[in-house]
C-alpha cells in the first residue's frame, strides 16, 4: 500500500529496501510548508483516488526498479496534516549513490506529475483552497503541465535513455 492515513515511519521504509548489496540509500521527504504564495498555511488535507494511486505508484516504482539493482519504497499520507508533518517519503537503495539518487528523483517527480492526489490548504486568514485549481477549478490539464501526451512522451524518453 502506497497510501496511508498514519504518520510515515521512515525507519520501516528504509528497512524494506536495505540489503547487503545495496550500500547507497537516498531518501526524499516532502513535509507540510507553513506558507503558499505569500500566505500563511496552518494545515492541509490530502485526498486521493486511492485505487489509481496504488496502480500508478506501482508503475512508477516498477519503472525505477527496472533501471538496475534498485529497490524503492514509497508512502504518501492522506487526511489531515499539520505544518511539518511528512506528506510523502521516497527511499531508494542501490549499490551506488548515483543510481539511488536517480531512482529517488524519478519517483518523486513522476508522483507529482501522474499520481491522483489533491490537497486543500487551510490558511491562517480562514480561507480554504484546493491547490492548483484556482478559485473555481479552471486550470486545464495543459496549463498544469500534465497533458497526457507529455506523460507518454516522458515515459518513452525515460526508457530510451536506459
Amino acid at each position, binding site marked *: 500500500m502506497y497510501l496511508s492515513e498514519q504518520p510515515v515511519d521512515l525507519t520501516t521504509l528504509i528497512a524494506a529496501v536495505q540489503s547487503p548489496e545495496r550500500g547507497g540509500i537516498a531518501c526524499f521527504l516532502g513535509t507540510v510548508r507553513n506558507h503558499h504564495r505569500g500566505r500563511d498555511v496552518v494545515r492541509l488535507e490530502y485526498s486521493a483516488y486511492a485505487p489509481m494511486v496504488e496502480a500508478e505508484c506501482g508503475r512508477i516504482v516498477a519503472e525505477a526498479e527496472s533501471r538496475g539493482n534498485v529497490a524503492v519504497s514509497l508512502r504518501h499520507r492522506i487526511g489531515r496534516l499539520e505544518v511539518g508533518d511528512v506528506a510523502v517519503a521516497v527511499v531508494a537503495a542501490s549499490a551506488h549513490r548515483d543510481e539511488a539518487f536517480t531512482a529517488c528523483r524519478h519517483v518523486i517527480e513522476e508522483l*507529482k506529475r501522474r499520481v*491522483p492526489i*489533491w490537497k486543500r490548504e487551510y490558511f491562517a486568514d480562514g480561507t480554504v483552497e*484546493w491547490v*492548483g485549481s484556482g478559485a473555481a477549478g479552471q486550470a486545464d*490539464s495543459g496549463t498544469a503541465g500534465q497533458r*497526457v501526451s507529455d506523460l507518454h512522451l516522458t515515459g518513452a524518453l525515460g526508457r530510451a535513455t536506459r
Partner: protein
Amino acid sequence: MTGTAVSAITVRVLLFASYSDVLGLDSLDLTIETPATVADALNRVRSLPGGERLPAKPLCALNLRHVDAATRLSDGDELAILPPLAGG
C-alpha cells in the same frame, strides 16, 4: 435484443476534489450511445449543473490509467475526471 441499430453502454464517471465541489457529485453513471469517446462523456458531464466550470481539457483516467480525450469507451468503464494533481 438482436437490434441492428444503435447500442448503448454505461460508464461510471468519478469526480474528485474541486470538480466534485463544482458539480456537487462524487460519481454518476452515464448511458451513452456507441461508439463513444472520453470527449463524448466529458461533453455530457459539461451539460450538468456546474459542469460548465470544468476546464476545456481536464486530465482523465480510464480504468486507473491516464488517457486522452480520443480514447474509446467500453461498457462498464470507470472514467475519472482529475483536477490538477497536487501530491507530494
